[in-house]
């Protein structure tokens, strides 16, 4: 049983390279005919032969002497650009291959290295890493950004030249914003555009001003604060602001009426006085006639009461104190 016919293991660390040999070419060989036929393989040697594109995954790489470079071919097929140790010799330790090998492999530091190879290595690595970091953090400086400008000024002496080196200054992205952050910027509408008109020739007099004057509103029913409200404002309020300018009053009729009323009044008063005077006279006359008889009556009554008292007083004398 061949191991190739076994199912692929479920968990493998290394994916094996799928090798599919290309379909036979016209000359019944994998390799190009000129490579096989020629006695001198160097003559028209291809660098590498890409096999049939549909089925093959293997790209052959050749050594300078015309043999297939298996390690390179295999690493190329595995998709990793690296070199590998592929010869049998590599698997035998150096100490066994060379039994008298001297164990001397000193490592150098930057200070002890005789040449500048380590220095160069460190410097180049540093540069590579700095470039990568700059790319990551976005502080890369563009090459075309720098411009040189000739500086022309009257302050310069004859023959003296100055150049200005203009570079775009990279803004620090971590700086706080320069504008003030405001809420609801959209809600505040822009002011309306001004309406432009010709100036009117009309003169604004006091009448026009008064006409436009709107009196303060006063209620006849409500005055919660208890202000003193002048009468004219009350009147104005009562009339609904309609009577202010137009007082429609008939003075003539009013004076005639009031005069008539006054006359009638004084006439009535005179008549009443006369009536009173007559009545008073009549009463006086009556009083003077009736007085004497009344006094006589009263005297008679008093005498009678005295007589009754004298006759009854003996037994019922009032006690003396």
């Amino acid at each position, binding site marked *: 049983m061949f191991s190739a016919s076994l199912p692929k293991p479920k968990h493998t660390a290394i994916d094996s390279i799928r090798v599919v040999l290309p379909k036979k070419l016209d000359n019944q060989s994998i390799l190009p005919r000129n490579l096989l036929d020629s006695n001198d393989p160097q003559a028209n040697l291809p660098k590498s032969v890409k096999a049939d594109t549909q089925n093959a995954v293997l790209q052959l790489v050749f050594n300078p002497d015309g043999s297939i470079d298996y390690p390179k071919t295999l690493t190329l097929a595995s998709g990793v650009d690296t070199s590998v*140790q592929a010869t049998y010799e590599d698997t035998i*330790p150096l100490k066994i291959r060379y039994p008298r090998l001297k*164990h001397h492999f000193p490592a150098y530091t*930057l200070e002890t290295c005789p040449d500048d190879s380590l220095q160069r290595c460190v410097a*180049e690595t540093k540069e590579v890493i700095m470039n990568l970091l700059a790319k*990551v953090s976005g502080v890369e400086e563009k090459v075309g950004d720098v411009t040189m400008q000739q500086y022309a000024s009257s302050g310069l002496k004859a023959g003296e030249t100055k150049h200005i080196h203009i570079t775009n200054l990279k803004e620090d992205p971590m700086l706080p914003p320069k504008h003030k952050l405001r809420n609801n910027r959209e809600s505040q509408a822009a002011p309306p555009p001004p309406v432009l008109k010709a100036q009117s020739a009309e003169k604004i007099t006091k009448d026009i001003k008064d006409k436009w004057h709107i009196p303060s509103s006063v209620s006849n029913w409500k005055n919660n604060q208890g202000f003193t409200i002048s009468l004219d404002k009350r009147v104005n309020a009562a009339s609904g602001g309609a009577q202010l300018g137009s007082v429609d009053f008939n003075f003539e009729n009013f004076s005639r009426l009031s005069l008539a009323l006054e006359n009638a009044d004084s006439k009535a008063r005179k008549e009443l006085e006369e009536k009173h005077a007559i009545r008073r006279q009549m009463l006086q006359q009556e009083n003077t006639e009736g007085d004497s008889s009344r006094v006589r009556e009263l005297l008679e009554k008093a005498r009678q009461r005295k007589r009754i008292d004298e006759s009854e007083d003996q037994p019922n004398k009032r006690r003396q104190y």
Partner: protein
Amino acid sequence: MASLLYPDETLLPTDEFSERMYLSKKLEIYDGQNQVDPLASFSDSTAVIGAEPDLLTNDEISSPRRQPSNWKPLRILAGAHQGWVRSVAVDPGTNLWFVLGLTDAQIKVWDLASGDVRATISGHIMAVRSLVVSKKYPYLFSGSEDKTLRCWDLEKTNSTSGCQIRSYHGHVGGVYALALHPELDVLFSSGRDSAVRVWDVRSRVQAMALTGHSGDVTALFAQTGDPQVVLAGMDGTIRLWDLRNQKCALTLAQHSKGIRLLVKHPHELTMVSADATGTINQWVLPGGQLLNRLVTPESAQHDTNIINTLAINPDTNDLFAGYGDGRMNFYDYESGEVMQQTKTKPTEGTPSSTIYASTFDMLGMRLITCENDKSIKIWSQEHH
């Protein structure tokens, strides 16, 4: 500290030399006696291996056979944590403290000499899987299973507002490995999402994403010369990246299983990688040639050979491998021979021990191993 256990007081070092070296104090006696010309070693050429006849025809074998090393537990900080310790880093500048990343989502800073907790940093919400301490700045970077990558200012660990100063956002899976570029302010991070991201430390911007792996990227390191980043992943490949051209320069596919560990030698242009089968490979760096394949002694009782951690001693050139079943192997880095084989003893209450992380201190005098019994073990070499 009550929880601090000293298993054997007699194991503490007594010699003045190691103590002074450890505390980086000046030794007047040794001044001027043991001077080494720093430029002597650089007179040799450092060209690529293939074109080095002088190296290959060298008749004398330089290094004499070494004495077998003898690492012993010096101190156990037991019960110091609430969870497993998954990552460790020693301060490269002062060598006075080390940092641990725990599965209880905390980071603890320990004093190396006294064994006291200097600071506890909390902020992650899942296990802290990788730590790296900056040489230039007082910064600690931590990657966690909670998909975050954070930067801590160690000078502000006392502040009430916490000491986190940066967070690198972009990973879509847990972060398993971190590395800082030795010269540039660039941080590399990789993890579950099988992409390695290159961050600018200061601006937190992701500069590149190195893709190509088809599994978790479990280990990586960065160095000054090419290849500047080397990645190892669970798809069994090691990739050497050319950062200048942003392309994978070389892919090493000689491991048969997922690679969990990849460590660079502190002084040499070589690296070590270990995969899930327990194979340890040494590589020469600029070209990526296989230098050596370390042989682990076969043993019937060990059915698993999973290596969880590798550490290289900068001083004695020991390579330490900590296994998932608590075995500890010390190899000679040059020859690849096993120098010592031991096993950690789990503290009480833990049935079996697993080593998760380890590191040598900067002087190579102490080995710190972090295990699943929530303890830290500090090992030192017993001198003959």
